């Protein structure tokens, strides 16, 4: 077994684009769930709104790249209002139903053959973010430490992506320690109390939903830019639950929890992947029980086990946030 390789690959995943995209989407989810108590289980819908909003405006309407990005963000704002205006007036459970339904509706609609002329159907939208790479100021070459290296285009996406994460962390930190954030926390604790003190709970919930949704959209934009491709398969509901895993790992209701949790989630996932691959070489005993195609599922099972252990032994997550059971 080559443990150095395991470590190198896992570190690469921990700082990679999926990790930073998760960090952004989970920061949004943390504002929803951790600070406001909104049980959004369709965050991936906002991610899709961002990617398709930009992808469609860039490929179908030939919008310039910066405008396409704005269109992606605007799509998330519209989605947030569309879901929040009716659902946030109702009991908390309705938001869960509405968000997961909407995220599935988006995925099914964009992959349907009848939408092919707009969304590319199952094939998705390719090469709409090429102008992003035209802006790359980094000279060709490989950059990194030891075995963890990236080419100039990867570095460019990482640079922009982690800058977005840093901005989101600072913005969220400012928000949650402001009086605005105090109202969100009061809504999470007891929204009738907030109402009795003259707070328009509905408006705060909508603002929270839209803000967190926009962060999800930025995650979607960065993922799509990284692949220079947008396909419906990236927006399955299960990814929202991976985001919750990352949130619980890091610590619910902690500003940096989502960043730590997302990096850790991708580190573990990659570590399990490489370890399992190394373990099932044809002559090893494990190779007799585990096939190559089982690895994808098995690594998730291990991550699930880690999550269970964490919830049992350290329910407040690594950074000491709120225990999941008390998050609402």
């Amino acid at each position: 077994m080559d443990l150095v390789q395991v470590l190198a690959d896992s570190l690469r995943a921990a700082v990679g684009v999926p990790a930073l995209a998760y960090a952004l989407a989970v920061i949004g989810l943390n504002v929803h769930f951790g600070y406001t108590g909104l049980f959004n289980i369709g965050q991936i819908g906002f991610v899709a709104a961002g990617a398709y909003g930009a992808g469609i405006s860039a490929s179908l309407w030939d919008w310039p790249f910066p405008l396409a990005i704005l269109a992606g963000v605007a799509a998330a704002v519209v989605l947030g209002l569309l879901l929040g205006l009716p659902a946030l007036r109702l009991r908390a459970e309705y938001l869960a139903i509405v968000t997961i339904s909407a995220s599935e509706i988006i995925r099914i609609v964009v992959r349907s053959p009848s939408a092919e002329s707009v969304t590319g159907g199952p094939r998705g939208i390719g090469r709409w973010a090429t102008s992003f790479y035209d802006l790359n100021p980094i000279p060709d070459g490989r950059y990194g430490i030891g075995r963890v290296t990236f080419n100039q285009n990867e570095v460019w996406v990482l640079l922009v992506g982690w800058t977005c994460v840093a901005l989101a962390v600072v913005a969220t930190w400012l928000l949650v320690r402001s009086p605005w954030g105090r109202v969100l926390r009061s809504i999470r604790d007891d929204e009738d109390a907030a109402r009795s003190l003259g707070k328009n709970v509905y408006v705060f919930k909508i603002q929270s939903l839209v803000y967190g949704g926009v962060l999800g959209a930025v995650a979607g934009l960065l993922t799509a830019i990284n692949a220079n491709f947008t396909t419906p398969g990236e927006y399955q509901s299960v990814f929202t639950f991976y985001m919750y895993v990352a949130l619980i790992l890091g610590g619910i209701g902690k500003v940096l929890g989502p960043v730590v949790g997302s990096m850790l989630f991708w580190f573990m996932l990659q570590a399990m992947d490489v370890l399992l691959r190394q373990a099932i070489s044809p002559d090893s005993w494990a190779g007799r029980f585990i096939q190559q195609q089982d690895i994808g599922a098995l690594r998730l099972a291990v991550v699930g086990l880690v999550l269970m252990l964490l919830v049992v032994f350290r329910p407040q997550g690594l950074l000491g946030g709120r225990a999941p059971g008390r998050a609402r």
Partner: protein
Amino acid sequence: MTGTPSPAAEPLAEVAPQPGVPKPDALLVADDVRRTFGGLTAVDVDHLEVQRGSITALIGPNGAGKTTLFNLLTGFDKPDGGRWSFDGVPLQGVSAHQVARQGMVRTFQLTKVLAEMSVLDNMLLATRDHPGERFFSAFLPARWRGREGDAVERARELLAKVGLDAKASDAAGTLSGGQRKLLEMARALMVEPSLVMLDEPMAGVNPALTQTLLHHISALRDEGRTVLFVEHDMDVVHEISDWVVVMAQGRVIAEGPPRHVTADPAVIDAYLGTAHHRDPEVGP
């Protein structure tokens, strides 16, 4: 025990003690407020006025509709019909947070302190028109720091008044039942209300703290506020209220000065006479 008559009771001295009687200076006026749950009529109030600057007690047996009436008047529940106004402003159909902003703030029978927030944050939350609560201003502390400073000062003053200043940075969830009642009352004052509606302020409070609470409620009136409160303990009602409204089965069956009301045979029949056979009141 009977408290000294307050100056606020004087204008009420001339008012006839009968249900729905008009008051010389009514702050809250309700007409034909009805609420039914299925076949049950929880509230059916033909006419009710609350005198400005007075302490009015709302009493009645279990299920009389007192809390439901509170919920309706404060926008926490929707009536089947009726209209009411506060300081001349019609309030039917107005949402709960707007009712509070009008200056009519309520507390809850089961206290709603925000357990995970600090005592001080509970207070600060109730600040009126805080610029830092606007989404985009929240990013710019320079825009709201001044207001926040003023709010902290006022919050500490109010906490000192109710003796919770030492607890300011503790989580509100660590407070005792009585302290929670005090915090809820102090928090309501942060909204600068002209009418304070207290839903069973003495429920679950140990007797040692009852006198403190009574003192604070009287102080509200002495500051010029109007108090409407739900209570079961007749001693408490006697001691501090200027006027008593008795509800039974959703209707106002009697009202008048405390001594008059407790002597009213209809009240004794509906409330006092049966009170001993009933379970103590639980949640709504």
